[in-house]
């Protein structure tokens, strides 16, 4: 049993170390960082803030991990957040119940994902182009839904998903951790994970082995759309409204970054959802740390880029071979010339 835990832990070591290092850095710059307190039955503190603010990217990263594992990419998730937020807001404004609104928003996200999956799996369009369609069109669709205005609402039941809490934990944190657990179990306790990896490594060989490649591809994009719609609900509930232009803006890039920082290859194949979630938390810790450190805001993106580059360089295979090169050097001095033995010539 221990060995089955050690392997994933070893695999995630770079992410865990990076996260620990950044949290430590935050602590040094801002000694209050690990301070937690309970107010009105809810935990407050910078650490909780990281978990809470990181929720949308974490949710997107879950779906994105599976899409990337199939050698694909989903650029539309940011736009899907906007669409689903708009759908949810307009449904609440129209006076629908919270349950109905949730089903509507989740269904919309699923539909968006199926559309992407259809383009990729059935029409065989390259994923980056196929999902670009919805990325570009999505914000327009969201504006059509909200009729061009920023819709606001004040429905306690719905706002709960953004600012409510369960057992002291903010609702968004509960949702993304739950989603992470459920989907990890779904792919690892069934054969789904292995089949998805097989498709990502060699689609043709997978099809020839009888894997239902198109259906699985559709499912993966649909799941990504679903994750985006959950993120959309959280974002809308958090700001108590729908902003078609800015909700989820550029989050697809953060999600891709989270997946990569999580140690997953953009070339598809082996994947780790836990790794991606750690990646999302690393990114959010960087964001929060920069905010807390009080650097002028114009530095934020540059600092973030530098930190991301450092993390990626540490993970890169090229660095490993450089390491091997340096560790091998002493061996070279052993190359002492030996007396020539002409055994072969004697034959």
């Amino acid at each position, binding site marked *: 049993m221990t060995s089955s835990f050690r392997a994933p832990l070893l695999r995630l070591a770079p992410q865990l170390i990076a996260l620990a290092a950044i949290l430590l850095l935050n602590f040094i710059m801002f000694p209050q960082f690990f301070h937690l307190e309970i107010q009105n039955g809810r935990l407050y503190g910078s650490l909780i803030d990281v978990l809470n603010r990181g929720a949308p990217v974490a949710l997107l990263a879950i779906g994105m991990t599976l899409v990337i594992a199939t050698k694909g990419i989903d650029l539309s998730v940011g736009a899907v957040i906007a669409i689903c937020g708009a759908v949810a807001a307009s449904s609440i404004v129209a006076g629908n119940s919270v349950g109905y609104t949730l089903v509507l928003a989740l269904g919309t996200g699923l539909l968006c994902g199926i559309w992407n999956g259809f383009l990729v799996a059935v029409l065989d369009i390259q994923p980056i182009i196929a999902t670009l369609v919805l990325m570009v069109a999505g914000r327009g669709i969201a504006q059509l839904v909200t009729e061009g205005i920023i819709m606001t609402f004040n429905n306690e039941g719905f706002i709960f998903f953004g600012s409510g809490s369960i057992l002291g934990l903010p609702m968004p944190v509960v949702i993304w951790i739950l989603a992470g657990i459920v989907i990890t179990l779904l792919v690892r306790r069934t054969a789904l994970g292995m*089949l998805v990896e097989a498709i990502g490594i*060699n689609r043709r060989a997978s099809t020839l*082995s009888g*894997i239902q490649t198109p259906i699985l591809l559709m499912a993966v994009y649909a799941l990504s759309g679903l994750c985006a719609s959950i993120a959309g609900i959280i974002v809308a509930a958090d700001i108590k409204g729908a902003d078609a232009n800015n909700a989820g803006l550029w989050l697809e890039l953060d999600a891709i970054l989270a997946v990569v920082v999580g140690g997953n290859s953009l070339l598809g194949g*082996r994947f780790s959802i836990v790794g991606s979630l750690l990646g999302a938390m690393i990114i959010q810790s960087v964001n929060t740390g920069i905010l807390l450190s009080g650097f002028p805001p114009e530095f934020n993106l540059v600092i973030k880029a530098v930190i991301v580059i450092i993390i990626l360089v540490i993970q890169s295979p090229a660095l490993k071979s450089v390491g091997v090169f340096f560790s091998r050097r002493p061996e070279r001095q052993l190359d002492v010339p030996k007396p*020539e033995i002409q*055994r*072969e*010539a004697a034959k």
Partner: protein
Amino acid sequence: MAHDFENILAASDFCKYFPGSTALDHVNFSLRRGEVHALLGENGAGKSTLIKCMTGAYRPDAGTLVLDGAEINPHDTLAAQKLGIGTVYQEVNLLPNLSVAENLFLGRQPRQFGLVSTRKMNAQARALLAQYGMDIDVGRQLDRFSVAIQQVIAIARAVDLSGKVLILDEPTASLDTQEVAMLFGIIRDLKKRGLGIIFITHFLEQVFEISDRITVLRNGKLVGTRDRAGLERQGLIEMMLGRELAAVEAEERQTQDTAGPVKYRFQNFGKRGKIKPFDLDVRAGEVVGVAGLLGSGRTETAEVLFGVEHADSGEATVDGQPLALSSPRAAIKGGFGFCPEDRKTDGIIGDLSIRENIVVALQARRGWARPLSRSEQNSIADRYIKALDIRTTDREKPIRLLSGGNQQKAILARWLATNPSFLILDEPTRGIDVGAHAEIIHLIEDLCKQGMSLIVISSELDELVAYSTRVIVLRDREHIAELTGADISANRIIESIAGTSSKKEDA
């Protein structure tokens, strides 16, 4: 140090250790001027490690390398190239999207006023290729030419850059007979110019045809170096295998006419532009061989049968029941299995472990919601690793790290795990070493005895003759003949392909 005028390249006492294994154990190898020296051994014998140590890709842990009387110690392939050791690999490593001339002069293009002069470069390229009796448009993109021509271009580049030693690593693996003859002509010319040529191949006929001396490695050790003259085929295979010769070579052809009733019947089956409609009956427990030249429709036949290409005419029946072969998945449901010709692109799922590669077809058939437990997977994988003698240290190793023969066995295991009743094997023995070759042929015979129906496509006629109950001959995407019983012989197959015998329209 005794100056050695006869040998252009001599490696003495080469040792190379990898974690957990000894790849080369005090190997001596010498190459004379103007000789073709074949380097043989099963996969994993140490051929490529030896080559890599000589070309600077690896550094030997012990031993010396003498080129032209001077000790050298190349630290990378570029250094070895400059010293005079050039290599051409099986997969031509040129740039397919550049022109022939650019490929020949890449990195050393002739310049005029500091700019690359395409005109000069093309002229030089033409002159260079003329030495090889080739007159082609050097301005055209490389990938417009056949693999054989690309191979010659790679050789021309290597000889032009290096010029003392040429190492050919399985250059003939993807060439047809005429192309091999052309390549051998070029090798003989280079030999006359005094180059030392090391030739690695799996084809023993070619070894006997072209080489002057033969060196055999086994398990990282030198078995011996012999002159070709006076060496028997049997003796050579024994050197390579180190055990009694694989039965394939010696075994007399034995046809079992004991096959049962027709089980699989394909009538008027075909697809436009791929393969003309054909009729094919396969009995339980028989091996139907498929012969034909490259491009004759062999692989297309397999793909139509397995549902990779959806047949647009005819129908398939199993035991009289119609079977829709609309996709590989449908075919698998009907008990079919298919080992494709191109292992790397169509067969293995490289980064997945051997275990996962073996269970993937069975798992796909069960569906994702009914996973095989890890212990079930382990026991299936272990069973086939043992039964097919897949040589690996660990079932969790990524399959891409295995040698070709072991990969092929793992793919066979993938299908055997689904317990198929109809197995299509497309070139099951291509590019694998003699030992694994014999094992796979035995396996085909065993499966057939167990009552499985097999279709085996192969370009090795002796092999087809050895195990086929019937042989279908293809030409120009059409089934042109069916040989049975005493008619099955390599000569008869060649006659049919060539169209010299009266065509038989078999029913």
